[in-house]
């Protein structure tokens, strides 16, 4: 389940390299002496004294662990903005997001006007089969009223082990009284890849974030499209994709490249210095169809790695606006009690040796999106997006094989431009300093 907006904010700014578990534990095992000697004697004494003072004197009782969580939070906030401390709940949620699947019933929910409502059931999931609809109001979960229940709590209650049952009491326009829906939980995949066809043999694929399934989903979607139509080109939409797993960024770029370097990283320790190369033999390589990548200021980290590699290797034309500019790699380091640190451990560089930090990827063709009206609040913009989604009016809310129409292209100027470029390939030399092969 999860919620659209929360998922985005969760992954925001993360290029999580979840390769750390084994690595970190060995590091700990190897260096007991170093570890003990590390925090200088007096400074750690100051900390211990502060902890005791707070435990004994703060107006309300606080546990040592509460205090230490606050302290670790404080230590991490002296680092860069992408480093963070996660309590055990937050860490668990991150693992679900990056694994690309969880056990639940397959609905996205949100709070609207203090009511818990279904944003949409995910196709093919138990919720979908049970007939749950977008806009349904969740009155009770397992008999417990949802009045005043925080979103995270509701999410927790609806999720549960595969095979177990959850009962939702739903209210819907047209119901005389709320009805109970008993639903058996299953493993639900989180889709990070969505697509549509465009008239004239052009594929449109949108990647919302980079998680465990992204590359295989992308590859499958591409294959489906190429089997359906004589394939003339691809628009890969990385707009507002905040990133995700580094290895998935490498695989997605590799999908379209047969050789050469994709990205390399440099950190303080040799383990953090890594070079990633493309291998031949993926779906998006042969024949090398024309390709446009869409980016905007919401495209960060993993998105920038993909855009940077495809740009430097002259595989794709980049269209849109300058990307976010996050050129650092974070490693997730689990701590003893189930909490975790997300630490910036390395910087990454595109194949041509350019850092993206603060600079971003500059598009070959700049196309601005329509700006939102300045006086609108974030909440009203979100509400509108939600309503559109519930009416299934978003670009990727329709089936992949239903072609994108001309009116839909008119509403999305960068996409319209990308399609025009692909229809008149190759692009004029004046547009691209590095015309793709």
């Amino acid at each position, binding site marked *: 389940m999860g919620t659209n907006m929360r998922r985005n904010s969760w992954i925001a700014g993360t290029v999580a390299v979840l390769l750390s578990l084994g690595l970190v534990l060995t590091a700990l095992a190897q260096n007991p002496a170093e570890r003990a000697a590390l925090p200088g004697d007096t400074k750690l004494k100051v900390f211990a004294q502060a*902890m005791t003072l707070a435990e004994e004197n*703060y107006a309300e009782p606080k546990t040592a662990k509460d205090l230490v969580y606050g302290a670790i*939070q404080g*230590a991490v906030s002296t*680092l860069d903005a992408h480093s963070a401390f996660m309590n055990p709940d937050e860490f668990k949620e991150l693992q679900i997001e990056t694994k690309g699947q969880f056990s639940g019933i397959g609905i996205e929910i949100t709070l609207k006007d203090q009511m818990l409502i279904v944003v949409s059931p995910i196709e093919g999931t138990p919720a979908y089969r049970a007939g749950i609809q977008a806009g349904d109001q969740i009155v009770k979960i397992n008999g417990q009223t949802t009045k005043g229940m925080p979103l995270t709590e509701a999410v927790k209650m609806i999720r549960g082990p595969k095979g177990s049952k959850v009962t939702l009491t739903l209210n819907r326009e047209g119901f005389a009284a709320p009805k109970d829906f008993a639903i058996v939980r299953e493993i639900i995949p989180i889709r990070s890849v969505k697509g549509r066809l465009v008239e004239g043999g052009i594929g449109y694929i949108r990647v919302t974030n980079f998680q465990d399934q992204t590359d295989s989903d992308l590859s499958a979607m591409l294959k489906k499209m190429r089997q359906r139509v004589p394939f003339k080109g691809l628009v890969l939409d990385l707009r507002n994709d905040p990133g995700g797993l580094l290895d998935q960024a490498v695989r997605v770029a590799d999908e379209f490249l047969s050789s050469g370097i994709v990205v390399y990283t440099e950190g*303080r320790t040799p383990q953090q210095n890594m070079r990633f190369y493309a291998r031949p033999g993926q779906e998006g390589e042969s024949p090398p169809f024309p390709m446009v990548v869409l980016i905007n200021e919401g495209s960060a980290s993993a998105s920038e790695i993909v855009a940077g590699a495809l740009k430097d290797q002259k595989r794709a034309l980049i269209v849109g606006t300058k990307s976010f500019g996050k050129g650092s790699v974070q490693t997730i380091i689990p701590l*003893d009690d189930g909490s975790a640190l997300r*630490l910036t451990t390395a910087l990454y560089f595109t194949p041509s040796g350019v850092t993206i930090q603060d600079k971003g990827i500059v598009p070959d063709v700049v196309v601005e999106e329509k700006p939102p009206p300045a006086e609108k609040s974030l909440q009203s913009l979100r509400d509108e997006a939600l309503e559109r989604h519930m009416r299934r009016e978003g670009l990727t809310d329709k089936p992949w094989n239903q072609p994108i129409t001309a009116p839909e292209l008119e509403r999305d100027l960068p996409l319209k431009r990308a399609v025009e470029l692909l229809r008149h390939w190759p692009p004029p030399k004046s547009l691209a300093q590095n015309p793709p092969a």
Partner: protein
Amino acid sequence: MHVKTGKLSRLHWGAGLAAAVLVLALAVYGPPALKAAAPQDYEALRLYTEALFEISQKYVTPKSEEDMIYGSLRGMMNSLDPDCSFLTPREYQDYLEGKKGPGGEAGVDLIYKDNLLTVASALDGGPAWRAGLRPGDHILKINGQLARNLTTQEGARRFRGAPGTTIKLQVIRNGLVKPLDLSVTLEEPLKAGSVAFQVLPDSCGYVRIKYFTGETPGELTAALKALLSYRPALKGLVLDLRNNARGTLEQAVRSATVLVGEKEIVAVKGRGPESSQTYMGKARGIAVKSPLPPLVVLTDQGTARAAEIMAGALRDQDQAVLLGAKTLGLCGLTKAMPLVDGSALVMTVATCYTPNGAKIQGKGLEPEVAGKPLVAKPGGEKAGPPAPDQDPWVLQAVDLLKSGKARHVAIKGPKQEAP
């Protein structure tokens, strides 16, 4: 209150008591000696050193140990409540010596809450108000620098300097899509009084307390005497405590006495009996012996500390009706506690309860009558808040007083939960 004395804790014991408490603190906590810790302390410390170890080994650039530990102590204090802060040895030294910073100020009270520097209140018509800052605004950047990893005390320091200094701010407001760019020019503190009053149409009196100082009780007494001698006699009083987060416990108690007389005003409770105390008003403090006309007190999210004490006392003792929005819920007594390396913690050791036992800290006071939704005007009023006779909530309060139902509402008003 830092305007008057330069001390750091905003709301603390009366001057005499402060010294006593400080001495007590030194006797208990210094000379630097550590008590044996409980097992769960060691476990928590182990987790802490594990985290520090990982940061020192893996973070992309090396960090100094002092940065890490002081950052940790800031984080620990921030996780408690916005009045808790950490002072470096130098800051603590300044605090002990009562050193005043440079004379200019922005006329704004800030708190560091949920990792955001937030405007608690902005002085009516003061530099921050005129620049466009309002209670509830989050300050994202100060002179281009992100306002991260601060404490309430540090946040306040960033807004002091020589008069004439201009500070550029980036501010996030209530879900606006784009941050606002504002600039505030620091000024000498206002010399004007803390209390203003006038008679509104419909024979209602209006008293505004902008902030609390040592002069407030006297100014309030004068205002009330003037209003209550008005003929024909007033039908009711509106006391405006909105956007007021500045003042001490002692100032609050002395000001509330003016209206409440010899009754309980506030109780403070901490961990042990020694940190609990009840504050009573004094009979001779009262302004007028005759019964008060019905009283409506205006509150909002900028009502904090001394103003919350006063609002709670008037509600519980004078059957005043609170009208407006929920108060901030920041009402504790802080104490500075030195650490072995010369740095110090500023920690909330007791929190305030209204005479009926409602806890203020962390909860705020919920008005019996909700203020009508306000229509936000783009740009807002640059010069100051609207005139009382054009202020929607003041007019709403007058309507309530005219209807004769104010006391009725007060008696029927929702019970606050007891601690």
